[in-house]
């Protein structure tokens, strides 16, 4: 299987605050194949951004990617690289765009200045060539009159346009991987749709693999090949888009489904938010992080973290319901344990 671009194994990232260790990510493992789109979904605070920033090597003090975590990118373990070595990979091999385009561009430099700097950082080309490249990228992401607009400053663009600029910059050095952390959350609904449309379009036109992070399953429904469901710093379920949408094997995923609006269902079918709140990451539960809110929680869920069960080749779920001794509820099946 040489098709793997990124393989994250047992990622643990903590922030050492004065209150104690905040265990934001507690042993997350997932992988991404070349050319594919991976969605990471979960409620606020489930550790999605921290996972992405860990891959980028952007965890700042007092945070730390813990010993034993492996982030394998094209055969190299990124956790072993120095910050300087990582900075040559960032923006070049792996790019990232963020949630709030209004604050993600430096207000005191023009778009040209910011884009050219990134391009020249990673490629030995003239300023003129870098600018041409930047204009080309702006055109690609649908900025009208790119030659003229590139002279503008961030405040002269709308939120949606700024996110396009962010995407253009992120893709300007042909990265192998683009991580988009809630790229549409801060935008108006119509603009959200446009940005998603752009990402879908880009997916077919460039070879970059993409990770999209969202708290809204609906957002990534059509664009993702594979989906990772995160909760309380752990991976609850992974699978293809089909698996996650039509054969969810984890009560948390099912809960996420019930909490998103569906176009085709008649209005009387109310949204059901998941009751309760995410676990305290300062004192993470010993058992399943979802146990406090799960409608099917059993005694063992409180006592022991569920192992990962394999449902099919790409479909896994960490839930005791899949254990052979578990009572049969709903559509949950019995599966084999793949890892503790």
């Amino acid at each position, binding site marked *: 299987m040489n098709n793997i671009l990124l393989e994250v194994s047992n990622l643990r990232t903590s922030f050492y605050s004065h209150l104690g260790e905040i265990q934001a990510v507690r042993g997350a493992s997932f992988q991404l194949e070349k050319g594919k789109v991976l969605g990471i979904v979960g409620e606020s605070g489930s550790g999605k951004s921290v996972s992405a920033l860990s891959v980028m090597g*952007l965890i700042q003090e007092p945070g730390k990617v813990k010993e034993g975590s492996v982030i394998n990118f094209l055969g190299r373990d990124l956790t072993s690289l120095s910050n*300087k070595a990582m*900075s040559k990979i960032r923006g070049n091999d792996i*790019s*990232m765009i963020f949630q709030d385009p209004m604050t993600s561009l430096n207000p005191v*430099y023009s778009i040209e200045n910011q884009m050219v700097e*990134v391009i020249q950082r990673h490629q030995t080309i003239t300023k003129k060539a870098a600018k041409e490249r930047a204009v080309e990228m702006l055109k690609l992401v649908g900025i009208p009159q790119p030659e003229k607009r590139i002279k503008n400053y961030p405040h002269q663009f709308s939120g949606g346009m700024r996110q396009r600029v962010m995407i253009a910059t992120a893709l300007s050095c042909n990265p192998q991987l683009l991580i988009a952390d809630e790229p549409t959350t801060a935008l108006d609904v119509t603009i959200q749709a446009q940005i998603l449309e752009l990402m879908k379009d880009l997916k077919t036109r460039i070879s970059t693999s993409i990770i999209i992070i969202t708290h809204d399953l609906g957002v990534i429904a059509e664009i993702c090949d594979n989906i990772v469901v995160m909760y309380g710093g752990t991976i609850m379920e992974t699978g293809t888009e089909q698996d996650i949408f039509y054969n969810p094997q984890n009560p948390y995923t099912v809960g996420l489904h019930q909490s998103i609006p569906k176009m085709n269902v008649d209005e009387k079918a109310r949204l059901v938010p998941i009751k309760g709140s995410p676990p305290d990451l300062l004192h993470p539960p010993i058992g399943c992080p979802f146990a406090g809110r799960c409608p099917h929680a059993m005694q063992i869920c409180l006592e022991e973290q569920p192992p990962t069960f394999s449902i099919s080749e790409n479909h896994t779920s960490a839930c005791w319901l899949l254990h052979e001794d578990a009572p049969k509820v709903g559509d949950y099946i019995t599966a084999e344990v793949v890892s503790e």
Partner: protein
Amino acid sequence: MGRYFFRRFLYSLLTIWLIASVTFFMMHAIPGGPFTREKAIPDEILRVIEAKYNLDAPLYEQYFDYLKGLVTFDLGPSFQKVGTSVNDLIVAGFPNTAKVGFFAILAIIVIGVPVGIVSALKQNKPLDYIVMFGATLGVTIPSFVIATVYIYIFAGKLGWVPPFGLRNAVSYIGPMIALSGYSLSFVARLTRSSMLEILRADYIQTARANGLSEYSVIAKHAVKNAVIPVITYLGPTIAAIMTGSFVVERIFAIPGIGRYFVESVTNRDYTTIMAVTVLYATIYVFMVLLVDIAYALVDPRIRFEKEKA
């Protein structure tokens, strides 16, 4: 933009005129005059003196004479220092104040800003604690204490510097420290806190995510944003320093303009008070204008707002 600043320039002139007028009328509204003494001067003598300085003329006439003087840079005779004009006082005093002030301002910017930046980068490390301790001392110890201790140690005990005056290059050090101590410490703290805030900004994370070198992230992307509040603070500070400090000039026996100001107030030396007030106002107003220009240079958002205006 040029038009905007031209308009601002005209407003500045208007402001100076307003301040000059308010000072003039306030001076004359307060009972007593420059020649009021505890031991009363005989009436006829007082009248002769007042006639000499035109103080018996109607107020509006005095006012227009005064304005005319301002415009032609003829600030009239000093009422207290017989035989000297206010022009003489300013010409003699201002260069000394300005020289010391210039070095003090230089120190504030060249030392205060980088120290604040480094301190922010080393947040909660020993260096940061040392710098912040020093800066806290700097804003709490009054300048006369700094000046006195400095003279006691370096002029008295060690004899490295002359105790007063501006005789050679080293003699500038003391006044410079005393004058800049507060503002330098303040600027260091302001830069530090502004820098800490900017370092958490999303676009700094973007800069890092784009793989920019840590040097560029700090020196290019963070610093330019972080100095914006410092610029705001510097405007009035520069004005205040350029018009001299009574205390510092007194302790170091610098023949500057700061002392005339205070002395003239207690002496009711109308012409000097007004001249120094107008001088202060002029420097202040133009520093504010300069701050605005600096703003526009640093921040494109402001530049575009001005263009629209």
